[in-house]
C-alpha cells in the first residue's frame, strides 16, 4: 500500500504540486474578482515572486522563510506602485492596463542579464514540498472564509454588486481596491516562489498573457460565489489534461469543449453556493 502511494506520488509529483500552486493563483484571482474588478496582472505578480525568490536563493543563498516573505513583499510593492494610477480605471480598462504590466515585466525578464534572459533561471534547489504548498493553500482558504464572514467581506460583496451604493454606505472604495490588488499580488508572488522551488527552472514565458488567462479561467470555471469555487476550478483545469490523456490528439478539443459547456450552462460556475454569512440566520 505504501509502496503504491510512493509510486503514485513520485509519478504525479509535479501534477500534485501544480494543484496546490494553481489553487493559490486561483485565490489570487478571486480576491480582485470578489470586489468586482478585473485585473489580469496575476501572472506578472507570480513572475515577480518567482524571480525574486529564485534570485535570492541562487545569488544570495538567503534562508527559505525569508525568501518566501520577499516573494510576497516585492509583488506587493509593485502592486502599490502600479495600483495608484491604474485603479482609477475599471472594467476592461483595468484589465488592459494590467496586461500591459505583464508584458513590460516579461520583456524586462527577457532582456536582463540578472534574470538569465530568455533562458530563465535554472538549478533552483527544491525547497518547497507538499506540506508547505498545501498548508499555504489551506491557510489562504481559511483566511478568505473568515474575511468573507465579516464586515470586510460584506463590503467586498457590496462593491461587487453595486460599487456606487457601496460607496454611499461609507465603504472606502480606493482603499478596498488597493488592498485587494496587494493581497492578490502577494498570493500570486507566493505561488510563483513555491513553483520556482519545486520545478527548479523558471523562464519569462511562464508568466505571459497565456498564464494570465489560464488563471482567470480557474475563477470563471469554478465561480466566485465563495473562495472554494476558484480553487475547484483550478483543480479541474489542472487535472483535465491528465485525465483526458487517453484521448491523445483529441485531448485539447475535449478540454476546450468541457470549459465551453461549463461556462454556457453554469454561468455562476461549478460551485455556485455562497458561504453562509454571519447574521444570515433568521
Amino acid at each position: 500500500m505504501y509502496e503504491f502511494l510512493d509510486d503514485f506520488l513520485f509519478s504525479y509529483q509535479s501534477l500534485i504540486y501544480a494543484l496546490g500552486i494553481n489553487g493559490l493563483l486561483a485565490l489570487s484571482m478571486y480576491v480582485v474578482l470578489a470586489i468586482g474588478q478585473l485585473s489580469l496582472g496575476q501572472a506578472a505578480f507570480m513572475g515577480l515572486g518567482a524571480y525574486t525568490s529564485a534570485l535570492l536563493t541562487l545569488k544570495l543563498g538567503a534562508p527559505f522563510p525569508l525568501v518566501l516573505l520577499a516573494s510576497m513583499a516585492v509583488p506587493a510593492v509593485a502592486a502599490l506602485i502600479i495600483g495608484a494610477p491604474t485603479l482609477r480605471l475599471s472594467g476592461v480598462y483595468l484589465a488592459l492596463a494590467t496586461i500591459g504590466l505583464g508584458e513590460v515585466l516579461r520583456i524586462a525578464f527577457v532582456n536582463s542579464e540578472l534574470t538569465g534572459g530568455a533562458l530563465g533561471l535554472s538549478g533552483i534547489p527544491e525547497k518547497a514540498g507538499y506540506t508547505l504548498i498545501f498548508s499555504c493553500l489551506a491557510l489562504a482558504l481559511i483566511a478568505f472564509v473568515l474575511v468573507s464572514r465579516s464586515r470586510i467581506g460584506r463590503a467586498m460583496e457590496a462593491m461587487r454588486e453595486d460599487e456606487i451604493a457601496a460607496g454611499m454606505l461609507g465603504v472606502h472604495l480606493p482603499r478596498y481596491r488597493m488592498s485587494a490588488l496587494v493581497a492578490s499580488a502577494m498570493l500570486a508572488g507566493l505561488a510563483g516562489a513555491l513553483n520556482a522551488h519545486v520545478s527548479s527552472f523558471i523562464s519569462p514565458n511562464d508568466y505571459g498573457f497565456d498564464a494570465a488567462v489560464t488563471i482567470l479561467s480557474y475563477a470563471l470555471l469554478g465561480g466566485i460565489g465563495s473562495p472554494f469555487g476558484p480553487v475547484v476550478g483550478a483543480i479541474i483545469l489542472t487535472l483535465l489534461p491528465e485525465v483526458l490523456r487517453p484521448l491523445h490528439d483529441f485531448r485539447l478539443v475535449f478540454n476546450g469543449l468541457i470549459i465551453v459547456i461549463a461556462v454556457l450552462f453554469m454561468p455562476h460556475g461549478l460551485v455556485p453556493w455562497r458561504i453562509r454569512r454571519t447574521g444570515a440566520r433568521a
Partner: protein
Amino acid sequence: MNGAILALENLTVRFGGLAAVDGVSFHVEPQTVHGLIGPNGAGKTTAFNLISGLGHQNDGHILFNGETIDDWPSWERAQRGLARTFQNIRTFGEMTVMENVLAGMHAHVGGGLGATLLRLPSFRAAESAAIGKARDILGFVGLADASARRAGNLPYGDQRRLEIARALASDPKLMLVDEPAAGMNPSETASLIDLLLRLKARGVTLLLVEHDMHFIMNLCDHITVLNFGRKIAEGTPVEVRSDPSVIEAYLGTKVAERLEAGARVR
C-alpha cells in the same frame, strides 16, 4: 440658516451647454422633512447626486453641518452621516436582507483585518452587536420576518423599505430619499408615509424628491421647487401649492392663465 444641517450655496453643474443645476441655493433645517420637487428634468436627481458626492459641481458650495464638503468623496460623506436611497432601487440583490442592513453599518462596525482573521473577542462583540441592531432596524421598517431572504427576491415595495433600512443602518443625520413612492400602490404609499414620519421622529432629517404631490404635501415641512435647474419657489406646502410660478411650471402657461382667469370670474 446657521443651524441648517445642509446648505447649498449657488450650486451649479453644467453638462456641456446644459446647466442641469443652475445657481441653486437652499437649506434644510434639522429634524424636518424637506421636499425637492419639480417637473421631469428639473435637476432634482442631479442635485441629489451632487449632495451625495456622486458628481461634482462646477460652481458653488455644499455645506453639511456647517462644514464645506465640496471635496469629500461619497464614502466620506456617508461616514459623516449622509445617507441616500436611489430612484432605481439599488439593494444588493444577491445578499440576504440581513446582510444588506449589516453592509449599511459598514462605517460603524468595528473589526480590522487582524481581529477578523483571529476572531478576537472584540470582533465577535462587534458582530453580534451589529446583528442585534440590524434586527431592530428591520423590525422598525417592518421587514423582521424577511431577514434571511435574498434581497433580490423581495417584492418591490419591500425592496424600497430595505433600501431605507440599509440607509438607516449607517446612522445618518440626513437621508436623501429619491422618489420612494414611485411605482407604489396607494396602500403601499400610505405605509411608506408612515415609515418616513417615524424616521423623522427618530431624529433623521429627510430630503425628499417625489412626484406624488399628495405624498409631498402630506409629509413635508418645507418644499423647494426646481424647474430647468433653477429654484423657482420655496416655502411651506400651502405656500408652494398656491405659487403661480409653480402652477405654471407643472401645468404650463395656458392652464395657469385659465386658472387665474377662473379665479377672477369667481
